[in-house]
């Protein structure tokens, strides 16, 4: 084997090692803050570089890495495909932005106290969760990511944070227990935990003596757990509590990284693993049908409920949290159609991926902006604000672009997500009219609601007379540059959509390509 081949073959594990190494080293260098920060930045740069190079190298097909050289169904595989890496790339960019923002805003003593290390551990967990090809391993990485997020949410341990953190931890512990139950059940019924092997066995349930109704039951438990982690409506109540209490950079990470890990797992399991078992006759009730219908209801409810609740919020963080619930609904809604109608599956995933990227970037920028406002003015209540657009133009421009990117105004990136959503039911393939009309109705109502709360945020907080609290304070300019970075990113992704669309398309293809996934993992093709 040549040297160059060996470098390529180890590349899927590289981001993981970089994140772990950076996390450990930043933990060690407590004496000098400068050293910590430079190590942390260096590690982030290396991480982003490794992810981007990996993203381009998997465009031709997924890369599989077997830990300890144990062959596929027995050992733990890492599968780097373009879907996972695109999401990981955005997670890395959001984390990098948050890190740069934190350097100037988080207290020095707190930064010395393992803040950077925790950020990198979170990245470590997210990397593992997105790359792993094993169901139980996925649970472990989930827990790693969540454990760092527990600490980060309660980072200053103020009275509000301890309470919110408690809610968050208890909910996620219960979710974890249920995830374990469902994983155990899936293992007992199918006899495997490797996602590719699982998919392979589900395609021949009789051969492997698998009882499909039990798989269906356990898959629904998994669905509920993922819905909890991504904050869909009946399980959304933790979102505003936690987002409002957590430090703003952490809220940005929660919506940009942690929630996306849950979303990724849902897509990976329901669109890569389960579809192969879906051809088996089970009457009207196949896994994907139940999944699709329940997801349709949950995401529609999230869109409407989140939008309406966001309208009446006075606190910016609360408004953003409810907007996050509504946006998760927008992200999930095409998935429900994808589950119900296989012919439009890829188009729907394209819409989902665009909306996910858009939401991560826009929410990161908005939460960081809210952090700037809170730090300078001491309040994030819209009633105390006013006239920010004249007071601090850079901040206002980025808030404007980000919030209207969530709404989906043309030149900005979010527009393409909404566009793909809208053309979904108009696609040539016939979709039952009930679904398509409901879909369009929800879409329109949701978009109007998000437009209204965007206007609400803009009009009360940023336009009009400069309020006395605003005029007395200054927002440091160096904190605002990072917002500008996210804003420019949103605009350039929107304007140059043509250049990124091949990446998104290949990501959507690899997300639904079960046979390619099975072949890559089990047969090394």
């Amino acid at each position, binding site marked *: 084997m040549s040297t160059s081949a060996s470098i390529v073959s180890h590349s899927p594990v590289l981001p993981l090692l970089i994140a772990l190494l950076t996390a450990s080293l930043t933990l060690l260098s407590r004496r000098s803050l400068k050293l910590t920060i430079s190590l942390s930045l260096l590690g982030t740069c290396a991480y982003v570089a490794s992810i981007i190079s990996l993203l381009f190298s998997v465009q031709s097909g997924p890369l599989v890495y077997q830990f300890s050289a144990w062959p596929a169904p027995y050992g733990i595989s890492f599968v780097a495909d373009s879907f996972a890496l695109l999401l990981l790339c955005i997670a890395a960019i959001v984390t990098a932005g948050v890190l740069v923002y934190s350097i100037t805003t988080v207290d020095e003593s707190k930064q010395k106290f393992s803040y950077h290390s925790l950020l990198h551990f979170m990245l470590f967990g997210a990397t593992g969760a997105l790359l792993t090809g094993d169901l139980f391993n996925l649970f472990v990485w989930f827990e790693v990511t969540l*454990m760092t997020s527990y600490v980060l949410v*309660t980072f200053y341990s*103020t*009275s509000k944070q*301890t*309470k919110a953190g408690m809610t968050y*931890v208890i909910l996620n512990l219960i979710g974890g227990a249920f995830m374990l*139950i469902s994983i155990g059940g899936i*293992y007992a019924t199918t006899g495997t935990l490797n996602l590719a092997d699982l998919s392979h066995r589900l395609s021949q349930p009789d051969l492997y003596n698998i009882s499909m109704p039990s798989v269906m039951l356990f898959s629904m438990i998994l669905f509920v757990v993922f819905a909890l982690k991504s904050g869909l409506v009946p399980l959304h109540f933790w979102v505003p509590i936690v987002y409002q209490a957590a430090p703003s950079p952490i809220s940005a990470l929660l919506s940009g990284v942690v929630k996306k890990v849950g979303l990724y797992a849902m897509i990976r399991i329901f669109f890569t693993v389960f579809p192969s078992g879906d051809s088996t006759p089970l009457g009207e009730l196949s896994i994907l049908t139940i999944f699709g219908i329940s997801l349709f209801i949950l995401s529609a409810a999230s869109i409407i409920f989140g939008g309406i609740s966001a309208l009446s919020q006075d606190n910016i963080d609360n408004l953003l949290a409810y907007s996050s619930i509504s946006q998760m609904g927008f992200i999930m809604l095409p998935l429900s159609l994808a589950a119900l109608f296989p012919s439009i599956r890829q188009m729907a995933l394209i819409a989902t991926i665009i909306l996910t990227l858009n939401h991560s970037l826009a929410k990161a920028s908005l939460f960081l902006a809210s952090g700037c406002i809170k730090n300078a003015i001491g309040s994030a209540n819209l009633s105390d604000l006013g006239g920010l657009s004249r007071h601090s133009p850079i901040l206002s421009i980025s808030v404007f672009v980000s919030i209207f990117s969530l709404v989906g105004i043309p030149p900005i990136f979010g527009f393409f997500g909404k566009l793909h959503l809208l053309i979904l039911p108009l696609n040539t393939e016939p979709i039952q009219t009930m679904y398509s009309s409901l879909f369009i109705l929800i879409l329109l109502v949701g978009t109007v609601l998000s437009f209204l709360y965007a206007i609400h945020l803009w009009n009360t907080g940023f336009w009009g007379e400069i309020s006395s609290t605003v005029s007395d304070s200054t927002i440091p300019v160096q904190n605002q540059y990072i917002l500008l970075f996210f804003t420019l990113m949103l605009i350039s992704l929107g304007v140059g959509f043509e250049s990124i669309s091949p990446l998104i398309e290949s990501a959507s293809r690899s997300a639904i390509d079960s046979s390619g996934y099975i072949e890559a993992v089990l047969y090394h093709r």
Partner: protein
Amino acid sequence: MTPLILALILGSLFSLGTFLLLRRDLLKAILGVIILGQAANVYLITMGGISGTVPVLSDSSSLISITDPLVQALVLTAIVISLGTTSFVLVLLLRVYDEHGTLDIDRLWGQL
């Protein structure tokens, strides 16, 4: 016989966990969550079968009835994870008590 006992143990663990989770005392609620987690671990053990003998022995005659070793490895991992989360949640409980002076859920969350 053993499946019945295990089912009873599992059922009582889950019901105990749920019962404690619904208490007004935050400490009891947390104990409930921890017990639920442990119940999930016990359940995971039963998924590998419990009647067989030790796996991976040179004597190949007992190949048919070995216990699945994988679930035990999984449970070990899950126990380590729950050790970490349990210790974190207990420290957080101490912080909640420090900040609010009470562990009564109604008084903590009633005044939201």
